[in-house]
């Protein structure tokens, strides 16, 4: 049974009128994995998630969750998953506890089981002292935590986290990270989207980068950095023609941003010393390559919206 992937998508597409939001995406997520779905705004992340939990019907392709067909067995699947939405859709007409107890009804949880689970989950997410507060009194960070708590209410085996840490203060963010690590230890599978590449690199076992509805890269964060960027990055400014000619002549991989140049390199120190002294008058830095470099290299630096 363990060989069945928790999520298996085959060539899924989503077309809205003239817009192809998702254009043939296939991937698998195995049990206990923390899987990242990264991409700029409008890349098709949320559309993909909405198809994965059976909210949006697919235009083409197939999705199996726990080995079940999402278009037929959506109700069974949804009973076993949690969804933490990107937008704030907590119910402002209810208290913190009220939000959770109404949601428990959606899962058909008996009152007593629900009450116990709510107490447990509020403690887990650090909101037990605000159980009877009006939702409108909560800060943005507490609201995000409440949405996360709501997605964990039914003890899901799989959770979809659509930008769970956007707008959180560092304290809350660390709490969320810790809790995700605990869930992972229990064998919960997580599909995560985020715009924080550091977070993705830290949390995800494996990830895909999507843009314009297509997968651009797939792999472990470290491998992706190694493969697409290298080990180090030299950032220098100002950029003079001499430097441009030199990087061209040596066949280096680089990006010219006008006032700044970014050079991806596999060897490091000597090149850096040379550029720093010769061209940039000590205004040059050498740093470790990151997932953010991969992301920007693959998806470009143009603004999306």
């Amino acid at each position, binding site marked *: 049974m363990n060989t069945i992937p928790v999520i298996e998508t085959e060539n899924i597409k989503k077309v809205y009128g003239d817009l192809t939001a998702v254009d043939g995406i296939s991937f698998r997520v195995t049990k206990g994995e923390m899987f990242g779905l990264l991409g700029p705004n409008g890349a098709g992340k949320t559309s993909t998630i909405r198809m994965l939990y059976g*909210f949006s*019907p697919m235009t083409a392709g197939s999705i199996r969750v726990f080995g079940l067909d999402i278009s037929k067995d959506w109700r069974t699947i949804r009973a076993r998953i949690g969804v933490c939405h990107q*937008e704030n859709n907590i119910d402002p*007409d209810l208290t913190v506890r*009220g939000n959770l107890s109404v*949601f428990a009804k959606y899962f058909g949880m008996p009152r007593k089981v629900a009450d116990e689970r709510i107490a447990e989950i509020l403690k887990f997410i650090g909101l037990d002292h605000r159980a009877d507060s009006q939702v409108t009194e909560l800060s943005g960070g507490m609201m995000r935590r409440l949405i996360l708590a709501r997605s964990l209410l039914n003890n899901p085996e799989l959770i979809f986290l659509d930008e769970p840490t956007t707008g959180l203060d560092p304290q809350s963010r660390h709490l969320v990270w810790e809790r995700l690590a605990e869930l992972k230890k229990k064998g919960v599978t997580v599909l995560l989207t985020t715009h924080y590449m550091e977070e993705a690199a830290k949390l995800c076992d494996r990830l895909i980068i999507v843009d314009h509805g297509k997968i651009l890269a797939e792999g472990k964060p470290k491998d992706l950095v190694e493969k697409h960027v290298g080990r180090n990055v030299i950032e220098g400014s100002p950029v003079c023609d001499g430097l441009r000619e030199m990087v061209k002549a040596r066949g280096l991989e680089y990006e010219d941003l006008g006032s700044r140049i970014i050079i991806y390199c596999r060897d490091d120190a000597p090149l850096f010393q040379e550029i720093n002294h010769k061209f940039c008058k000590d205004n040059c830095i050498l740093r470790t390559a990151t997932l953010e470099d991969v992301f920007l290299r693959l998806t470009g630096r143009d603004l999306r919206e």
Partner: protein
Amino acid sequence: MKQHPVSITSRFLAVWYRNWVVYLRTWKVSFLPPFLEPILYIAAFGVGFKLLIPSVKYNGLDLSYVAFIAPALVAVSIMNSSFFETTYSAFVRMYYLKTFDATMSAPVSVDEVTTGEIVWGATRSVIAATIMLAVLGVLDLVRWPYVLLILPLAALGGLGFGAVGMVFTGIVPNIDLFTLPTFLFITPMFLFSGTFFPLDTLPTWARGVAMALPLTHLSNLSREICLGFPGGMSILWSVVYLVVFAAIFFVTAVLVMRRRLVK
């Protein structure tokens, strides 16, 4: 897009429950309109019209004007309670609060959301009718125990008008456009459905138009129930009308809400 088969289980009660919980928190305010409305109308028409209209003949009965309009006011309240619940209130939940999006990440179908909202609208109608009955009972304007049949009537009428409201919620682009159905549908019915004057005073063509309106049948039934069935079996047609009316708009509401929510 692939159409899913209709998927309605008792889980729609969870959607209903959400609204019930919120209602219990604000009942002291929500309960005022159906309580004050009949008192205001009866004060205005009872005192103001008494000299102009000494009595109204209805199905062989000689009624005071207030006794004539009181049952129609109950019908109007049944209509308004569910219609405004499934239009403005449901639209706020759907569009501004994104409540339905959250609901549908749990094992609840879009059809159950629609059903839960319409049944909640009908519940508001039953609550309103109950409060009005209490007021009319105190004023001695209704006949017991027949009048208790108003409650199932409120449920039926509430389902119908709630479904109509839900259809509008499924199609209006923004909340301001609810003024259109209110002006073109609710207000004319309020005035011309045998509410404030007997239909047989109208010319034949106008009576025909009135007979096509759902509120005519709802207020007709309400009046028959409150007055102890002076009209006999003829009211069965009105029951059939309301059942068909509710069924047609319920199905339409399910379809338009799918188109609105499932993207």
